[in-house]
C-alpha cells in the first residue's frame, strides 16, 4: 500500500486515489483530420514502460484534483508528483526508446 503525495493534500493512502494512466496525452487538435490508425493510437495505445512512467492520478477521495506523477513501474515507487502545468518532477520514461 503506497503513500501517495497529493500535491495539495499531502501524503495519503493509495485507496484515496484514482489511477488515470499515461500522462501528457493531448487531445488531438483536429480529430477529424486524423487517420483511423492515428485516432486509434490516441484512443487505445499507451506506453507501458518498465521503469519510470509519467501518469495521471486523481485524489478522488480528497481534493478531487488531477495531478501528474512519475512512478517506477518496477518498484512502484513514486519519484515525484506535480500539479497540472508544472514540469514533470523527474525525467521519465522514454530513456530506453528514444
Amino acid at each position: 500500500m503506497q503513500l501517495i503525495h497529493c500535491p495539495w493534500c499531502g501524503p495519503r493512502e493509495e485507496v484515496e486515489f484514482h489511477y488515470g494512466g499515461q500522462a501528457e496525452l493531448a487531445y488531438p487538435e483536429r480529430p477529424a483530420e486524423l487517420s483511423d490508425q492515428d485516432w486509434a493510437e490516441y484512443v487505445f495505445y499507451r506506453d507501458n514502460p518498465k521503469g519510470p512512467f509519467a501518469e495521471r492520478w486523481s485524489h478522488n477521495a480528497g481534493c478531487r484534483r488531477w495531478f501528474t506523477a512519475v512512478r517506477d513501474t518496477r518498484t512502484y515507487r513514486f519519484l515525484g508528483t506535480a500539479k497540472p502545468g508544472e514540469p514533470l518532477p523527474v525525467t521519465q520514461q522514454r530513456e530506453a526508446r528514444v
Partner: protein
Amino acid sequence: MNDVTTAPGADLPEHPDFLWRNPEPKKNYDVVIIGGGGHGLATAHYLAKNHGITNVAVLEKGWLAGGNMARNTTLIRSNYLWDESAAIYEHALKLWEGLEDDLGYPILFSQRGVLNLAHTEQDIRDSVRRVEANKLNGIDAEWLGPDEVKRICPIINTSGDIRYPVRGATYQPRAGIAKHDYVAWGFARRVDEAGVDLIQDCEVTGFTVDGDRVTGVRTSRGDIGCGTVALCAAGHTSVLLDELGVRTPLQSHPLQALVSELLEPVHPTIVMSNAVHVYVSQAHKGELVMGAGVDSYNGYGQRGAFHIIERQMAAAVELFPVFARAHLLRSWAGIVDVTPDASPIVGHTPYENVFVNAGWGTGGFKATPGLGWCFAHTIAHGQPHPYVAPFSLDRFTTGALVDEHGAAAVAH
C-alpha cells in the same frame, strides 16, 4: 489420534525422473519463441506435433514457466460471451480434455464446474445472456437459481439478508482446474523430447533487423539467429516490442492471488463473483485458492497492494461464512497484460516474420493449449488461424473490438 485415513494429496502423482535437457543455445533456429511460459511451451509443442517444426528454441529470461504460469489460479473455463472468445476458449477446453493423454503427464485436470454468481438484476441479465450465447455456441452452460447454487456448493451463503444476496449463477460443468506446474512441465518435457531447445536464464535484450524482417535476437546468452520470432512474453511484450519500435495497446498490471492452508474438502466447485470481487476453488491437496481483480496501476513488480487482498477476504467471508477462520498462508502476484477490450492480441506485427501473442489479461492459463495450437498454426502458415484471426492488432483501428468487459468483466 486423528481419524483421517487417506492422506490429502497422497494420490498426487509423482513427477517423472526426467523433464528436460539444459542445452547451450545454437547459432540459429527456424523459430525462436520468446517466453518460456505456458503459451511459449504450448506453441512449441504444437509446432512440433502438428507442423513438424522442431528446430525451435524457447528462450526464457528466468526459470521455465516462472511467470504468470507459476502465479495463476489455474481456472479453466470457456463460457465467454462473444463468439470469437468462446471459439478459442472452447477449442482450448476441448484440448484440455485430452491433454493428459497427449502429454503423457498427469496434469490433474479436474472438471468440477464453475459458478459465476449473480447478485443484481443486471448480473442476472448478463448471466442469462452469456448462458444463452454459450449454449448456441455449443458450450455447456446453465442458469441456476439460488437453491441450485446451494445444492452444487452448499457452503455459499444464499440467504437473502446479506449485503448482496446471491440471486443465482451461471454454471459451466466442464470448467475445472489443473495443476499449473504439471501442465508446464508436461509441455516442456514433450517439447524437449521433440528436440526443441529450452533455454533458461536467457533474456532477450534486442533484435537484429533487416528491413521488415528480424534476423536474430540479442540475448544475455549471446546472439541467436532466427527464421521466425514468436512473442509469448505476456506482461513483458511491450518492453520487447518497444525494441522493435512497434506499439501495442497493452498495459501491464499486477494481479494478486493467495492460498490458505490445507483444509478438508468443503468446496466442490469453482465460484466466481464479479460483484463482490472474488473467486475461489479448493485445490487437490485442500488449499483454498483465491484471486481478485487486478491492481489499478501499471506494474512489473510481481506484487500488489494489500488492500486488494483485504477486500477479497471480506468478499470471501461474506459469501462463505465458514471461511472466517481459514488462514491466508501465502499471497503473490503476477503481471497481466491487459488490452482495451479485455481480449488478446494474436497475429501479425509490422515485421513480416514476427508474430505476437499477448494481452490475455486474466485468461492466459485457460487458453494455453488452444492458443498454442492456433499460434503454432499461425507461425507455420504465416497466416492467423481462424480462431485467432479476430484478435488482430488492427481491430483497434477499425473498431471491431471483441469487448469482453461488458458481460465478462468477470476477471479470470
